[in-house]
């Protein structure tokens, strides 16, 4: 029955063409907001728009219904132009209950559109959300364009024929809303319908009900065009480099990059991990890649996770572990052992707000000190940082290259925002990448476990099972070359120097630092790392368009730093460092180059807004 109506589609009503829009879906954590967001993301990507997303959800799996702390949100910025961030302030807020409105209204642009489910605005829910009066009735929303629909009633009506319970019926609400939003932006529903059919293949009645709700929301839009409930929009496809695209989250890109890197190194992956928010998606993705020989091991704790990975590297696999800040803290001693025994190891840190448990589902970049300095002894490792979801792929490959070439732990920093956010990705070809196959030592002639490659200073990698190369390694200081235990004073000095120089020498094997936009010297450099890429890039581009003298520099290599970075930064009158921490990269830059890098810090658990960085640029240029 509803199939017929799908064909009616976009009528003659004129649609306003816009270049981008930011929508924030918000509702109770049981409302399926993240699913709504990811379905909207796929449909938007298939329509050819560029996009960036920001899933913003609570740590509680099912918080009490209707509470403000149970509100889950998903923000998407999409358009016909290049999209760098999930958007500062939404143009549209979809609020499926009063709590969602309460929590998210302050973000909405003045004059923005609010789509609310008035069916949830009962006295009880209003009270739970902290409203003294109903905002739909007291005029407090007069500055916005409010589309006020009893969605609860409509969705139950639309799924009546499927014999669902009231509870099951209400679970279709997110698809009803999605149908309405698709109508507003002229989007095709077929991808979402296909997804529902696949997802609920074993429960076709659930698929049918959700599809009916999706269609009903759409039809409601069609019918209401007469009443002028809302404007209709169209957002043309974005100009993107040619090629085949897909959407990708940081967690997926990272996992795939690790598999690609291991393939290029001609090694098998051993991934030892312990579940932790927000790092677990990497484990989940790799657990589904057994056909590539990937061995995943869910260890009993963070320490066992890293230790098993080091054991696997010792045995000739590429050992990888993954966690978030608190877990990385637990791994510290074992990372020191990997440094001391000079074994390859990749440690992925999906950073979250700290210290301690902090705010597990909220993003932060406050583990830079921990990555660079956070171990006992003089214990240098390589530190890399991904700047966005798709960048995780390339950074993961770089981590594999450096870990195996230099026989060293590599800390790969990403964060909760990057891990969960999605963006369109020009799919790379692994077959076209240059392989970097490792070479296991097999020749007993003159073998000693700590014999080194004179250029890289990396020791030989001789794995158990190789005849004639039996040797012992461990965390006690060892004599260079033989690896025998040594407490000899000059030897410890020498080994400490070697471990340091081996890592610093990597600066000669990584690209020189480039400038993302703006001149390579001038009045002001904005230096970022990690997931601040989007807002910094947009802010600097906007200021360049205004004729301001500002440049954007974004670091992938945090340790060692690129060899030309000091000279590059000294070419600017001022340097500001926006970071989602209390000023950590700023301190490293001051320490390394004695430059007056100024911090721009934000630790609210939310990404920087473009406008915040623009203001900082203006302020720096004025003074």
């Amino acid at each position, binding site marked *: 029955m509803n199939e017929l109506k799908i064909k009616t589609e976009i009528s003659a009503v004129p649609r306003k063409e816009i270049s981008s829009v930011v929508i924030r879906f918000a509702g109770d954590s049981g409302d399926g907001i993240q699913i709504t967001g990811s379905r909207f993301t796929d449909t938007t990507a298939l329509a050819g728009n560029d996009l960036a997303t920001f899933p913003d959800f609570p740590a509680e799996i099912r918080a009490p219904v209707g509470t403000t702390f149970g509100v889950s949100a998903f923000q998407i910025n999409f358009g016909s132009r290049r999209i760098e961030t999930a958007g500062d302030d939404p143009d549209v807020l979809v609020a499926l209950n009063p709590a969602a409105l309460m929590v998210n209204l302050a973000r909405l642009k003045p004059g923005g559109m609010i789509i609310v489910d008035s069916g949830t605005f009962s006295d009880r829910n209003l009270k739970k959300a902290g409203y003294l009066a109903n905002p739909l009735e007291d005029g407090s929303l007069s500055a916005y364009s409010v589309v006020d629909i009893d969605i609860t009633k409509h969705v139950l009506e639309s799924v009546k024929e499927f014999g669902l319970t009231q509870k099951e019926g209400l679970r279709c609400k997110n698809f009803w809303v999605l149908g309405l939003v698709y109508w507003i932006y002229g989007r095709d529903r077929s991808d979402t319908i296909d997804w529902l059919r696949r997802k609920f293949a074993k429960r076709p009645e659930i698929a049918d009900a959700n599809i009916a709700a999706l269609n009903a929301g759409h039809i409601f839009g069609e019918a209401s065009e007469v009443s002028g409930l809302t404007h209709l929009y169209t957002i043309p496809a974005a100009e993107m480099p040619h090629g*085949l695209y897909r*959407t990708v989250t940081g967690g997926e890109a990272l996992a795939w990059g690790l598999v690609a890197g291991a393939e290029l190194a001609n090694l098998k992956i051993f991934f030892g991990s312990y579940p932790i928010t927000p790092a677990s998606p990497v484990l989940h993705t790799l657990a589904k890649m057994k056909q590539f020989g990937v061995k995943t091991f869910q260890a009993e704790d963070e320490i066992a996770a890293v230790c098993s990975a080091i054991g696997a590297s010792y*045995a000739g696999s590429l050992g990888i572990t993954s966690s978030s800040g608190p877990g990385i803290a637990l791994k510290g001693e074992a990372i020191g052992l990997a440094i001391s025994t000079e074994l390859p190891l990749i440690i992925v840190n999906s950073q979250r707000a700290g210290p301690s448990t902090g705010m597990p589902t909220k993003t932060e970049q406050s583990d830079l000190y921990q990555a660079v300095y956070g171990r006992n002894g003089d214990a240098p490792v390589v530190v890399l940082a991904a700047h966005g979801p798709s960048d995780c792929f390339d950074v993961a490959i770089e981590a594999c290259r450096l870990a195996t070439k230099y026989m060293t732990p590599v800390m790969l920093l990403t964060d909760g925002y990057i891990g969960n956010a999605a963006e369109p990705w*020009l799919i790379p070809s692994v077959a076209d990448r240059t392989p970097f196959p490792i070479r296991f030592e097999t020749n007993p002639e003159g073998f000693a476990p700590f014999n080194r490659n004179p250029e890289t200073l990396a020791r030989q990698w001789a794995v158990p099972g190789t005849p004639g190369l039996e040797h*012992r390694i461990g965390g006690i200081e060892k004599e260079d070359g033989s690896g025998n*235990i040594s407490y000899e004073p000059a030897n410890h000095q020498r080994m400490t120097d070697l471990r340091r120089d081996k890592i610093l020498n990597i600066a000669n094997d990584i690209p020189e630092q480039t400038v993302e936009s703006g001149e390579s010297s001038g009045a002001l450099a904005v230096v970022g790392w990690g997931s601040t890429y989007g807002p910094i890039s947009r802010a600097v581009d906007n200021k360049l368009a205004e004729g301001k003298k500002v440049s954007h520099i974004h670091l992938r290599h945090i340790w060692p730093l690129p060899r030309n970075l000091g000279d590059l930064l000294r070419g600017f009158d001022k340097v500001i460092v926006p970071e989602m921490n209390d000023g950590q990269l700023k301190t490293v830059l001051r320490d390394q180059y004695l430059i007056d890098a100024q911090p721009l810090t934000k630790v609210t658990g939310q990404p920087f807004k473009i406008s915040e960085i623009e203001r900082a640029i203006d302020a720096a240029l004025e003074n």
Partner: protein
Amino acid sequence: MNIAVTKEKMKPTDFASDQEVRWCPGCGDYAILKAVQRTLPDLDTPKENYVFVSGIGCSSRFPYYMSTYGFHTIHGRAPAFATGIKIANPELDVWMVTGDGDGFSIGGNHMLHVLRRNVDLQILLCNNEIYGLTKGQYSPTSEVGLRTPSSPDGSVDTPLKPLVFTLGAGARFAARAYDTQKTLPEVLKRAHAHKGTSLVEILQNCIVYNDAVFDNVLARDVAAEKQLHVEHGKPLIFGAEKNKGIRLNARTLTLEAVTIGENGVTEEDILVHDETNRSLATLIAAMDGHDLPMAFGVIYCDPAPTYEAGIEAKLDAAKASGTPSLDALLRQGHTWQA
């Protein structure tokens, strides 16, 4: 293919490294090292496939004295390293050496999980009921009341029984021996033959900080009365006259020592050792040399599939659909052309 056959048989000294052994003179670890070096030539593992993994402590220096592959890791974590090694390459023959502090205090969590997972390893637990390397503090297996620098007026910690823990964790092999036991290599061979985690508790004398702590069981004059050497299918008989045995008190579900020929006790009443019986093994493992003799030998052996075999089977199943291509995987699902 017959290289191994034509090879001359290895000798114990072939497994000694060139490093000077630095345990205290008279330490029980020397005897354990010798027993292991006597055991390996009789096994069919190529030398290059042996890996000795340890944590931190006196006994954890073990790998340095073997001429095999060895990894001296960090305190308490040897089970996790060993697990990673074995999963990465199931062909390797992995031996873990640990102590009562390393294995059951700082590493208790890892010990629990390696035992329940049943990774194919031999775990040699050198139990000396003391912290040796940190100079003599009480350990989780020390008796209540032990006076040490950290318990000057006597420890109040209830000791842990390693083999009861081992069986409680779901391990499929548990054995006990003592450092100077002549038949220690036989017990080690049984542990090696068992596919899965095989834990051998070895009572090890610390001559400096806890000397003669096991004398109540091991001293020559009490040995016959205080030691029960178990054998599968044989009655649990002990005593100088071989006339004492272990009987089950069915009412209290406890074991009791009885003398054959006294109070109407006959050989029929004596329990027969069944190393595949976990309930019986748990009762036997708990006998501590006080009221009942302490059991030595293979107390429990009932093989089950190993952890790494389970992982390999999953991988094989996933690979059955053909050679995968990452490039193909990245192009699966929703894609579009720009």
